[in-house]
């Protein structure tokens, strides 16, 4: 009895109120579990628990040949499937010192940017939905459907394409591809005004995001944040600009940098990026050179023994692929540096002292895709 009496009296105010947000929660966009400790409505700290959708992709890669790995990368950040494929393909091409045809580079760049727009459209949908404006979700999906139709016509599938192969493409683009892409850009230029009118300019949305979850440039760098989320803080980290691949060195586009680093800025970055992506596509779509859609590759691809690294700018940040090869047809070790994992790590830092509603807004502005976090 004595021990019980002698226990220090717990102050009611200091008691922590834990909430398990997820693994099944509407605004974690998948099976992510956030253990939030609250004081009233205010978030005191937050602990993400990942691994609910861990499929061991990196381990599975070790038994697959390089062409087979492609279809696994689709399933990491499923919203930028093409870009993930691009990373692995480029790594293999770099290791084997294969020069891919110009046509392939052009098509890959265009498709990457289309994929980026589609990804940002879905981000806009879910951002609007997390803010409570359900209508955004439907407008975003409606416009994303146009891109998916283009994808489906050319590549046969809508989300997980496995379109790139080491050395080139699975098949040539559909004859209608250029026409449809141009039609889409014309259409989307009109519809993106709706986005601005409906959500960007809205006073409620502005009040809820301005000055919330401010990420300084130093923190962005030290947490390893990349992509639009880091550029909102003024950290110039666009791989397309600083380590160009594809034909990004031939096109004119701006790397848009923000200043404030708050939720609204992160939102604006992605809105600007959609415009920039459309600009890139417009510059390339009429100039796709004629030629082969794939370089000649050996039937069995074996990478020379050694370590290889390749990075690309995925829709959410920098995706790095690291391969240790022992000269066999499968990698000895494969590691993906996924942007979402690093971006998630800053959530605790950003959301301390914010309200629950702010936590949702910050999470939506970081735009995490759970399968990419867990892999």
């Amino acid at each position: 009895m004595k021990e019980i009496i002698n226990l220090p009296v717990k102050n009611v105010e200091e008691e922590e109120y834990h909430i398990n947000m997820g693994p099944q929660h509407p605004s974690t966009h998948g099976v992510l579990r956030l253990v939030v400790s609250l004081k009233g409505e205010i978030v005191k700290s937050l602990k993400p628990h990942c691994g609910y959708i861990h499929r061991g992709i990196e381990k599975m890669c070790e038994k697959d040949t390089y062409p087979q790995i492609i279809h696994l990368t689709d399933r990491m950040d499923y919203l930028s499937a093409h870009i993930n494929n691009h990373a692995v393909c480029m790594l293999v091409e770099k290791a084997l010192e294969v020069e891919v045809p110009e046509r392939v580079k052009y098509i890959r760049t265009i498709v990457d940017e289309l994929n980026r727009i589609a990804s940002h459209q879905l981000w806009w949908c879910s951002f609007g939905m997390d803010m409570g404006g359900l209508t955004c979700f439907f407008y975003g999906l409606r416009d994303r459907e146009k891109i998916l139709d283009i994808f489906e016509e050319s590549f046969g599938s809508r989300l997980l394409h496995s379109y790139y192969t080491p050395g080139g493409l699975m098949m040539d683009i559909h004859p209608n591809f250029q026409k449809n892409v141009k039609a889409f850009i014309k259409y989307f230029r009109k519809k993106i005004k709706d986005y601005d009118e409906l959500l960007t300019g809205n006073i409620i949305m502005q009040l809820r995001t301005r000055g919330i979850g401010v990420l300084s440039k130093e923190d962005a760098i030290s947490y390893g944040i990349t992509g639009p989320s880091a550029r909102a803080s003024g950290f110039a980290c666009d791989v397309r600009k600083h380590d160009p691949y594809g034909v990004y060195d031939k096109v004119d586009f701006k790397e848009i940098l923000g200043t404030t680093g708050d939720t609204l800025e992160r939102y604006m970055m992605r809105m600007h990026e959609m415009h920039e992506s459309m600009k890139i596509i417009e510059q390339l779509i009429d100039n796709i050179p004629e030629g082969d859609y794939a370089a000649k590759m050996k039937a069995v691809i074996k990478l020379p023994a050694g370590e290889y690294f390749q990075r690309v700018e995925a829709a959410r940040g920098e995706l790095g692929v690291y391969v240790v090869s022992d000269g066999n047809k499968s990698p000895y070790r494969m590691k993906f540096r996924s942007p979402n994992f690093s971006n998630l790590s800053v959530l605790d830092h950003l959301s301390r002292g914010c309200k629950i509603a702010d936590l949702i807004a910050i999470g939506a502005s970081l735009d995490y895709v759970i399968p990419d976090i867990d892999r």
Partner: protein
Amino acid sequence: MNFSIYDFTSFTQWIDKVLYDNLPAFWAIAVEMTIIGVAILLFYALIGLFLVYAERKVCAFMQNRVGPNRVGPFGFFQTIADLFKLLMKELVYIKNADKLLFNIAPFIVIIASFMAIAAIPFAKGLHAIDFDIGILYVIAVSSLGVVGILLAGWSSNNKYSLIGAMRSGAQIVSYELSVGLSLVTIIILAGTMQFSAIVEGQANGWFIFKGHIPAFIAFIVFLIASTAETNRGPFDLAEAESELTAGFHTEYSGIKFAFFFLAEYMNMFIVASIAATVFLGGWMPFHVGGWEGFNHIMDFIPPFVWYIGKTFFIIWIMMWFKWTFPRLRIDQLLTLEWKYLLPINLVNILIMAFIVLMGWHF
């Protein structure tokens, strides 16, 4: 017996007379009560079902969709099918919940909205109780609903529910002020709180036009505040699905969830019909001074149609709000009330009192 669709007074008096002639007084009144109760209950259920359907259709059209279109023509029976689904669903009992309060809460919410509907004039003579304090009664009764929400949130023994209930409590208690004060603005103009007298007073012009700008401001404030009081978007913080999964009714299932759902829609109907009655003339037709022919045509439209039309117009505006705006945060919600709506309302009352004093209204 000369019934008209324009005046229900003779019809109701005829029923009254028949009952009292044929039955002892006690049974006559009992039968009368039962008739009224059943009529309102039917009306309540039908309107609730229709509103759910209407909301789904309206939001679908705003979102470039077609909405429910499988059950019946244009999906008209979709909500009835949903009702049967909800009726047949298992009622999940929560371990460690306060069972009594958990079961009582939906009834408190639904009874509060059910009581409010009694005082609303649907047409001339179609009016369950015509209190001399009609508006005050509606405000008083509708303030009971929040108790049900608080109890539901607490007794579910769920942290999301509790936060939802807390938010809802803070929200409803503060927005009740604005609802009350914006109605007071019109009470000053009308000089009465009796619904029938308020409607009669708008025979030569709706109050929103009669009261010039202050009445219009009061109308806007009432729209905003009543949207908040009914816990609808963009003020649906109590059930904010992206933050609290479903807020105070996270743990409810089956028919008990349906009660909350129905009560939400009925509260919307009630505030819309109050707005229609107080600001837009209730069942009074639209008249323009001097245009005799036009006024005559307007008179041909039955008052019940006028009333329903106005009410649904306001409901449509509230749906438009919900499907356009993102949700507010709790502190912004309270800022909106205490820093904007309430001061504007108070100044507005003063201006209205001054206008009435000087006789500047029509």
